[in-house]
């Protein structure tokens, strides 16, 4: 493929196949969400069943294709059926049998199977899909489908009609900021690297999504890998680089497979490689696999890792834009950041800047999880409030429980308490309340979540993932965790709270890299908003949420106990005594607080305090 005309020819050929409103003369399109979560929920047999059914339609008017994450993880496996001239119908929690029924009744019979379909579409209503535009829509393993939805148009435009300076100005004007952490303006990053003179420069993509509870980047890579490839080539043109690296988690085998397919297909079409679109611009991409180290999400550590070393960060300056990968000027952006680039070029910076808030432009993808009715991937305009995300999109808290807090930014972020549920989700607002955007994990917690335990959970993660290079992070986070353990085991003293704060502040100011500098955030923010819970653990030796084992006590209500002996038989510590048909008693000395009795009691006689 050497010209724009050739690209457009493919686009025209495919366009109708992938458009939402299907013309009457085109056939029926069935897409099956086959990202990791879909496959894990059993999408493969559904896909196979549908393909088998479709094979029976000899005129080829029914097309079954796989796609990336459709977003609504809660209801996987998800199948979407679009008949010519009709609205798309989303079927949820599919099985092979249900799929066959849908095929029979809807695809052939024209009657949607309402009982299997998603009726409550609030999940999608408040979303604006930019980065996820193609996810759950096109077949990620078919470059033609990407081209059919204007793929590689931006690259063509950039290298045939724009100067590198134009490209950088466009990105700058759009207000796009890094979606992976601190929110550094992407255009400025590119500008720095573009201005450094060097025989070799690199464009890197951080796909080492490591925050527990975050899977936005995985979804993009699995659903729309070409968007990242196209954007990296655009970045290469902008800064004067001919080589890119994608550093992707080895734990994402499907993402890796689809990326590799995408790179190969782009090569085949000449959209990667030498002299793209017949110009002097050449660009190639290498895949590198992370090997299980959260710290490699930090830019210098990522580069150190690509270079073949222990993934330890190095001090800055020199900044990567000056001296990065293999000592050469390098830019690094994350997957979601890149996923916005081509559209900014295509639709113009003003379009992008029209979304979001004054300082945070565009949209942000969040992985919504935890104690929420609809878990999944949501993309919202920056500045959408947390309330809208939780109540409108996520459908609130399950089991009638009360919303307690939301955690953003993973181990680097903080907790947003219920009192701040109207906080707009943008970079500055989140920082101001002691959290951060981070890469986009959004974990919802209800009244059964202990905030001290959550702080402990994140610290355990950080201690595990600290690279061990610098003293504050290596030793400091361990000491933080130990103090938290002391508190949750009922041995805390009030001075420990001061010590926690003092140590947190030190680790923040003295650590070598972003991991250490942000590691205390989960502690600081829970201390800030839930100090009373810490104090309850220390002063009253109680865990208000009933989580911290050492502080729990189980008692049997003699009124409710029927003496069925089930609890006693299930107690691993033989701490429950009583005779048949008589109320039983738990010996607190022997009780190991495992909760087995409570899980087994059919009469709700056992309570935990």
């Amino acid at each position, binding site marked *: 493929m050497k010209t724009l005309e050739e690209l457009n020819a493919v686009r025209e050929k495919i366009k109708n196949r992938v458009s939402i409103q299907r013309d009457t003369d085109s056939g029926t399109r069935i897409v099956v969400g086959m990202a*990791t*979560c879909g*496959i*894990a*929920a059993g999408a493969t047999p559904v896909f196979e069943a549908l393909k088998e059914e479709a094979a029976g339609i000899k005129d080829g008017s029914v097309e079954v294709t796989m796609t990336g994450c459709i977003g609504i*993880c*809660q209801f*996987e496996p998800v199948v979407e059926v679009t008949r010519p001239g009709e609205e798309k119908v989303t079927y949820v929690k599919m099985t092979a049998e249900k799929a066959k029924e849908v095929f029979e009744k809807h695809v052939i019979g024209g009657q949607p199977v309402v009982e299997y379909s998603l009726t409550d579409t609030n999940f999608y209503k408040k979303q604006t899909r930019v980065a996820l535009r193609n996810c759950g829509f096109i077949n990620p393993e078919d470059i033609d489908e990407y081209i059919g939805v204007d793929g590689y148009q931006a690259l063509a435009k950039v290298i045939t009609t724009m100067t590198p300076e134009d490209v950088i100005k466009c990105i700058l004007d759009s207000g796009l900021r890094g979606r992976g952490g601190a929110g550094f303006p992407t255009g400025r990053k590119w500008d720095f690297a573009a201005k450094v003179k060097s025989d070799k420069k690199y464009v890197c993509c951080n796909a080492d*999504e*490591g*925050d*527990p*509870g*975050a*899977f936005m980047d*995985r979804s993009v890579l699995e659903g729309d890998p070409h968007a990242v490839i196209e954007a990296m080539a655009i970045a290469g043109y902008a800064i004067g680089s001919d080589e890119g690296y994608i550093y992707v988690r*080895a*734990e*994402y*085998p499907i993402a890796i497979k689809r990326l590799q397919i995408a790179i190969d297909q782009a090569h085949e079409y000449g959209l990667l490689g030498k002299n793209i679109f017949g110009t002097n611009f050449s660009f190639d991409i290498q895949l*590198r*696999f*992370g*090997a*299980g*180290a*959260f710290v490699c999400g930090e830019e210098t550590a990522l580069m150190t*890792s*690509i*270079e*073949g*070393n*222990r*993934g*330890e960060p190095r001090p800055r300056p020199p900044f990567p834009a000056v001296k990065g990968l*293999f000592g050469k000027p390098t830019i690094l952006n994350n997957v979601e950041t890149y996923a916005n680039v081509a559209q900014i070029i295509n639709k113009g910076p003003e379009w992008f800047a029209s979304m979001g808030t004054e300082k945070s432009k565009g949209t942000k993808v969040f*992985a919504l*999880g*935890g*104690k929420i009715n609809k*878990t*999944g991937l949501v993309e919202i305009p920056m500045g959408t409030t947390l309330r809208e995300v939780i109540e409108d999109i996520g459908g609130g808290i399950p089991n009638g429980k009360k919303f307690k807090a939301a*955690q953003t930014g*993973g181990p680097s972020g903080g907790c947003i308490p219920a009192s701040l549920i109207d906080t707009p989700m943008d970079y500055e607002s989140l920082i101001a309340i002691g959290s951060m955007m981070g890469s986009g*994990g959004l*974990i919802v*917690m209800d009244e059964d*979540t202990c905030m001290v335990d*959550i702080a402990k*959970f994140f610290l355990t993660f950080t201690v*595990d993932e600290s*690279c061990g290079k610098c003293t504050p992070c290596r030793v400091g986070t361990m000491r933080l965790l130990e103090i938290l353990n002391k508190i949750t085991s009922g041995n805390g003293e009030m001075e420990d709270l001061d010590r926690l704060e003092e140590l947190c502040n030190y680790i923040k100011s003295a650590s070598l890299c972003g991991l250490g500098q942000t590691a205390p955030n989960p502690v600081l923010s829970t201390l800030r908003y839930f100090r009373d819970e810490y104090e309850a653990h220390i002063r009253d030796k109680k865990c208000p949420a009933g989580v911290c084992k050492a502080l729990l006590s189980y008692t049997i209500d003699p009124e409710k106990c029927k003496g069925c002996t089930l609890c006693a038989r299930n107690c691993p510590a033989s701490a429950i005594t009583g005779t048949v048909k008589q109320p039983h008693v738990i010996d607190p000395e022997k009780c190991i607080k495992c909760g087995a009795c409570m899980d087994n009691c059919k009469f709700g006689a056992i309570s935990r305090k």
Partner: protein
Amino acid sequence: MKKKQTTIPFKGTQAQEEKLENLIAKNKDVPGALLPILQGAQEIYGYLPKEVIRIIALRMDKSISEVYGVASFYSQFNLSPKGEYAISICLGTACYVKGSGKIMEEFEKELGISSGETTPDGKFSLNDTRCIGACGLAPVCMINSDVYGRLVPADVKKILDKYR
């Protein structure tokens, strides 16, 4: 994270060694080749035996301690052989708040080993893992490449029985 050293003797085959040598020869001059080579070697042997680390170091003109330092840094690299069925319990946030700790306890109880260990018959090894990205199905575990979601402790025995 402290890597456990294996005491199980190395049993490499000629074919594996040939694969390893090819892998090294092919990648040796690629910049930053050490990680891909270690990953490839682990694919060949299932883990990174001492003998293999030594060969990699010598061929790449690196000190053995440097290669070992890299291998021991990343949690993906195993220095001891995994079980025939490698069980990983996700302890990511979503799974954790949904009780994956209890699932882990149940596996430990059922198998009689603790996280990071392999059953004496070499059949099962148990590990905790970072988020595998299936948070919607929390809590989840993986056995080799099979994913099991929405687990409750009572599922553990049933799942294990499939592999026993």
